[in-house]
């Protein structure tokens, strides 16, 4: 069983009458790249702020590396984070800014600063003042700070905001490398599902402060892939017919009214005919398959 890095239980945050996060339960396991998806104001940043203790919870609890939220100070040594936009002292250089935090964290080996700058491709700009950085460079410096001191878990709030396509691609490779080679668990948020799809291994869709869906990449692929959606009031017998008559097990039962079949994509008529011949009441049968964006929209619409 994998080590649990983060587990939230009924985590709630209220601002007077407004509930920003409503009883959120998520579990991030070691080695995951966990993508938090949601529209602006869905609660992604609030969740990350709670985990990093930048704000106090209203209700519920969470654990980081099996340590309760009341005693996190030392455990936070194992995490690195970038919440909202990166923030540094504008009149100090990239190197000086990182050195300031290296001293603060008690990092003795200052080579870690150069290594972190190297990872985000800022080694050549280390003497440049932060105020002269472009938006993308500022974000990358924020990521460098999160990576300093070799964390086991990094929390990145919309880290690719403001980056150009090449920068996004480079960061994506960096995240994958950190995850695969260094075994770093990553919690990353975005409001664009297709952006996260390329890096994340697990997804959590948030809407209005609530977890709408939590699924693995494989499950997301299944949800979005091209298939024949069969709606019937007798799912059990329909599945038997698919296996016996059409000799296929390449289907999933979505709920007690829907089956998704991934074979016979060009022959829906044959499937319909076979089911009807075996007294299965088919209410509808249609070829389906949606893009990530459409899937995201559908899930959000269901909640609204």
């Amino acid at each position: 069983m994998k080590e649990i890095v983060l587990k939230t239980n009924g985590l709630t945050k209220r601002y007077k009458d407004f509930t920003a996060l409503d009883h959120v339960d998520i579990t991030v396991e070691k080695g995951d790249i966990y993508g938090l998806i949601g529209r602006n104001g869905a609660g992604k940043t609030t969740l990350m702020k709670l985990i990093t203790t930048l704000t106090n919870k209203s209700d519920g609890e969470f654990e980081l590396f099996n340590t309760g939220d009341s005693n996190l100070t030392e455990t936070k040594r194992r995490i690195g984070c970038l919440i909202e936009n990166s923030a540094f002292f504008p009149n100090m250089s990239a190197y000086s800014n990182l050195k300031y935090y290296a001293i603060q964290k008690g990092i003795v080996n200052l080579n870690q600063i150069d290594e972190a700058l190297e990872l985000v491709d800022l080694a050549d700009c280390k003497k440049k003042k932060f105020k002269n950085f472009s938006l993308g460079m500022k974000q990358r410096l924020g990521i460098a700070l999160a990576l300093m001191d070799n964390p086991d878990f990094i929390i990145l709030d919309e880290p690719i905001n403001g980056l150009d396509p090449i920068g996004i691609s480079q960061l994506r490779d960096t995240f994958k490398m950190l995850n695969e080679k260094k075994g770093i668990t990553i919690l990353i948020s975005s409001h664009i599902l297709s952006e996260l799809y390329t890096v994340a291994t697990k997804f959590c869709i948030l809407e209005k402060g609530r977890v709408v869906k939590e699924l693995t990449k494989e499950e997301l692929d299944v949800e979005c892939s091209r298939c024949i959606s069969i709606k019937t009031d007798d799912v059990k017998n329909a599945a038997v017919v698919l296996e016996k008559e059409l000799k296929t097990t390449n289907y999933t039962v979505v709920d007690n009214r829907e089956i998704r079949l991934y074979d016979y994509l060009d022959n829906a008529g044959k499937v319909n005919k076979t089911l009807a011949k075996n007294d299965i009441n088919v209410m509808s049968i249609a070829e389906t398959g949606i893009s990530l964006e459409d899937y995201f929209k559908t899930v959000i619409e269901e909640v609204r």
Partner: protein
Amino acid sequence: MFNIIKSDLYRILRGKAIYIAFLVMVVMSGLSMYELSPGYLGASSAGLEQINEDALEDVYRLGGELSLSEIRKIYEKHPYEFDKEFLAANANLYYIFIVMVAIIIAADFSKRTIKNTVSSAVSRKKYYYSKLICCILICSIFVLINNYGTYFVNKLVNGENFSSSLGTITRVTLYQLPIMYGIISLLVCVSVVVKKGSAFNAISIPLLMAFQLLITLFLRVLKMKATILNYEYQTALGKLARNPENDYIVKCVLLGIFYIVIFNIIGYYSFKRAEIK
């Protein structure tokens, strides 16, 4: 805690603000020494009548605008303990304290760099008290340089006639420090409550004047005894420098401790519950 203080010192010594503040302090001290008129700059003139009535008479007799050298010539005829009187006008250092708290704490809020620290392995308690200690440490260095620097340079430039003893300077410094630390605690409290650099400056700069105004208003409305004014910051620092009675020293030290405790309780609990943006 030590690491946070160390990192702040690293940052502050790389900026310009601390050197500008130091330069302002040296210029204030230098001009005062040259003119032999303590508290030359700033809102808190020591009050000529309290220093040297004879000199004041000469100033009035000559009338009109006097140059620095003319004022110096008048004072040269009427020697007094300049360095002690300079310390009586130490309320001027309040503005140096504002700058220090602004660069150590308020800047962290206004640049939003505080989130980098609070989200790391630093508890809010450790953050708050490290910053407080850092402010007190740096402000103390300024006070010591201001007091002892003025003492030694004054002795060298203006001679023994205008100097008191090293013991007197040390005693006055020790009497003044608790109430100064209380005021620094107030500034730290304001900075963490307002959580914005601009708001901190807007509140802290006129704060002493507003406080004086409020006390005066209370005295008039409630017809209270004016002795309460003796414990107002600027007046207290002045009185502590001029051979105060033991009873007054004790009351001022206790007032300083009260300020330190109360403002840090308010500051810490406000910060503990605050959302870091």
